[in-house]
């Protein structure tokens, strides 16, 4: 008998204007001892399926059809059923360990309460059980840490606590909804290893919901691919990833940046543009193209930045060294990658280069002028014009109160004070078409666009000043992988045609490999190494780089 059987599950969200079908007649079976990956892009309904199993769908969602049968019990037959199953038979892990623990109860209190809800144990017995569990998920000094509050744990440790809470009454089914997305690569691999180990030892059935094909390939036995609420394909992971039957799956797999080689462009199967990169960059006519001379455009010398908390007398925290004595040079026309985990200082460096922060020590030269010591605002404007930036979050990088037209027009007006309004309009249209948006977009407001389209608007705004250096701070990490492929292709095209210099900041090694000529690796504000891309991936010299390379989830691992 199948352990978990999802039969024709349909979930609807009744919204004001339309009904969103988050799951349409989905059929999935899961057996004990296996990890099923549920993969899809945002809006595919993968989390909805996970929440439906434990009957915790957010309002106004409703299960409109089908059944979920767990070990012979129909979950939706009787609303009482699920109350007995939650925690006892089904465990759930959320994405963000920062917010999934109650901040004012100790982890011990939370564990004991959960255990005593389901098992008839005395407080003493529950405590022993909880401590053993904490040890099992890899928390050192479990006895001591038992009385700690959640905020005293680091992100990775908190996720371990969350796992121990999900497992404390020995559920047989574990649903993990993006359990490692909020974590760094090195911690991600530890958590995934832990889930794999527990699956084997406890003979769990696990549903791992993720958008990361690398994680799917390294962790799961079988995989189900979802799109817009439909189950596209389900089968053994190796088969799906290597020989996908459906076009959508093929597209999805091909837009994942390979980790083992550098490709020229991402293949976009769904809508291959006929004449890419040739006629569509209209902006070229207006561009005063810089010839690439073999020189260093940006020189970063012994750059340091400390953030001082001591301004507030209450907190006597020591100042944090965000960037510590970093030096590197970027050649004109190249793509330079800046890689590191969270807290490595990569974004801080970017913000110093675009002059949002001023460095605590060290210099930044741009075109042989030290830009950190400019005082006159007139001088500054010259450099503002030449250095532009693209941000990570497409939702916060555009002012929602302005039309796209006004957003793109702002830099044009500012840097060409004599321009006529007709001229501005045609300039805006050229810019929008260069980033593959229609002219009609100009009259709309940002909220009418998707994340990928917003990122294009951002790029259009950045190009409006005709910059020489484009700083891209994680430009695609908030996007789905197929959209990421499109944006990365666009950036590559623009760079080639416009002779742009790009500083590309990312935590995602495969992406950096595809985009960059040279890469600098950062850790805790310190520079580990700078090397040519292929050299770095094939013969890393620094220990930390080696570690990162081994730990990153690789979609190709399925072939081994």
């Amino acid at each position: 008998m199948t352990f978990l059987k999802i039969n024709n599950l349909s979930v609807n969200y009744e919204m004001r204007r339309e009904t969103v079908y988050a799951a349409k007649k989905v059929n999935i079976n899961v057996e004990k001892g296996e990890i099923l990956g549920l993969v899809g892009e945002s809006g595919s309904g993968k989390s909805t399926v996970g929440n439906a199993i434990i009957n915790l769908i957010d309002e106004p969602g409703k299960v409109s059809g089908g059944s979920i049968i767990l070990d012979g019990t129909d979950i939706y037959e009787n609303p009482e059923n699920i109350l007995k199953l939650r925690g006892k038979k089904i465990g759930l892990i959320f994405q963000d360990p920062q917010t999934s623990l109650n901040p004012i109860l100790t982890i011990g209190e939370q564990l004991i309460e959960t255990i005593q809800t389901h098992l008839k144990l005395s407080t003493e017995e529950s405590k022993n059980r909880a401590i053993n569990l904490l040890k099992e998920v890899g928390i050192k000094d479990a006895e001591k840490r038992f009385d700690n509050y959640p905020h005293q744990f680091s992100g990775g440790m908190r996720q371990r606590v969350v796992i121990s809470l999900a497992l404390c009454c020995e559920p047989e089914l574990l649903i993990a909804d993006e359990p490692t997305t909020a974590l760094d690569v090195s911690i991600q691999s530890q958590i995934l290893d832990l889930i794999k180990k527990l699956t084997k030892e406890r003979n769990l059935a696990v549903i791992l919901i993720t958008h990361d094909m690398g994680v799917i390939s390294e962790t799961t036995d079988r995989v189900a691919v979802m799109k817009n609420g439909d189950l596209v394909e389900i089968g053994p992971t190796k088969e799906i990833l290597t020989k996908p039957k459906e076009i959508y799956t093929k597209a999805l797999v091909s837009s994942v940046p390979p980790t083992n080689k550098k490709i020229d462009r991402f293949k976009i199967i769904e809508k291959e543009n006929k004449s890419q990169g040739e006629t569509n960059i209209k902006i070229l006519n207006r561009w005063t193209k810089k010839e690439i001379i073999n020189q260093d455009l940006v020189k970063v010398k012994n750059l340091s930045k400390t953030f001082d908390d001591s301004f507030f007398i209450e907190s006597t925290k020591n100042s944090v060294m965000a960037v510590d004595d970093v030096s590197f040079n970027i050649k004109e026309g190249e793509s330079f990658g800046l890689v590191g985990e969270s807290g490595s200082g990569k974004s801080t460096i970017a913000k110093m280069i675009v002059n949002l922060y001023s460095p605590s020590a060290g210099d930044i030269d741009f075109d042989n002028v030290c830009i950190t010591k400019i005082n006159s605002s007139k001088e500054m404007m010259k450099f503002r014009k030449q250095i532009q930036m693209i941000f990570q979050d497409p939702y916060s990088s555009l002012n929602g109160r302005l039309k796209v037209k006004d957003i793109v027009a702002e830099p044009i007006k500012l840097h060409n004070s004599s321009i006529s309004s007709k001229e501005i309009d045609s300039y805006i249209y050229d810019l929008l078409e260069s980033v593959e948006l229609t002219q009609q977009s100009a009259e709309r407001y940002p909220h009418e666009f998707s994340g990928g389209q917003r990122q294009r608007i951002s790029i259009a705004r950045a190009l409006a000043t005709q910059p020489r250096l484009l700083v891209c701070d994680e430009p695609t990490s908030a996007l789905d992988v197929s959209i990421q492929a499109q944006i990365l292709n666009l950036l590559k095209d623009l760079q080639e045609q416009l002779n742009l210099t790009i500083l590309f900041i990312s935590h995602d090694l495969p992406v950096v490999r595809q985009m960059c000529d040279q890469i600098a690796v950062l850790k805790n504000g310190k520079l580990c190494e700078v090397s040519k891309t292929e050299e770095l991936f094939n013969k890393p010299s620094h220990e930390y780089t080696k570690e990162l390379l081994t730990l990153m989830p690789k979609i190709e691992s399925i072939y081994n």
Partner: protein
Amino acid sequence: MDNKKLTWFNRVKDSDIYYSFIKSPTAIVSTFILILIFFCSFFVEFVTPYNPFDPSSLSLMDAFTPPSWTEDGLAKFILGTDGQGRDMFATILYGSRISLIVGFSAVIFALVLGVGLGLSAGYFGGKYEMIVMRLTDVQLTVPSILMALLVDGIARGIISRELHDEMAIYVLIFAIGISEWPQFARVSRAATLVEKNKDYVSASTIIGVSNLIIMFKHILPNILRPVLVIGTIGLALAIIAEATLSFLGVGVPPTTPSLGTLIRLGNDFLFSGEWWITFFPAIFLVILAFSINLLGDWMRDTLNPKLN
């Protein structure tokens, strides 16, 4: 997305705010009542034939006429008359005009001051922010009604007694406005801190847009929603504060009575049975404040995406 031209009207019609307005009977009803009150108060000359401040039209014979539906009532005085024979209905409308003028002016004063300081404090940060926020802290420890009383008391000390009646309304606006600005400052500072860290502000800085333009063109429109909510609730508070001060006898003088003054004057007759003289202004005041609060409450729920 269809290609229909997005005019301003269509945008309003299409917006979620309009939708939830149509769906909310309380919002519609309270808006209707408010429009009615505003209209009647500001065009009171056309609404009622009586002018309670024209002594020639008053007759002491009419004094203490009870409301029209009671035994001794007269049809021409719907809500009865007060001790000087003034028609209550007209007096109330004239009074509510003063209450509304004071309320609106005080809120606008508080809003401009509070948002200006809060926005700039949040944007520039540093010592300036600390000073502004300390100032609001200190002032918030003094309850608003006390603050207003104090300002009024000081004004009485400075301004000579003869001038005081003339200046009373301005003193009142200043006193209430001063007592409400910290709310606006705190809300707009908090909202500015959120907006300031959004990337569109960084993008504008990198483009080279000046601080002043970033503050007013980019940040200000984005923090208006919470400010608007506070403003609406603040209006109700200001009207209540005005009424309270006038009731305590430190607000507008009896020669140009506001709702609070009317209630105070009527209060004296409560024990002798002429209940309508204080009752109707009080009810009117409550309806006014209640409608504004209902609208403010609805706005808070609608404009706060967190609770949707």
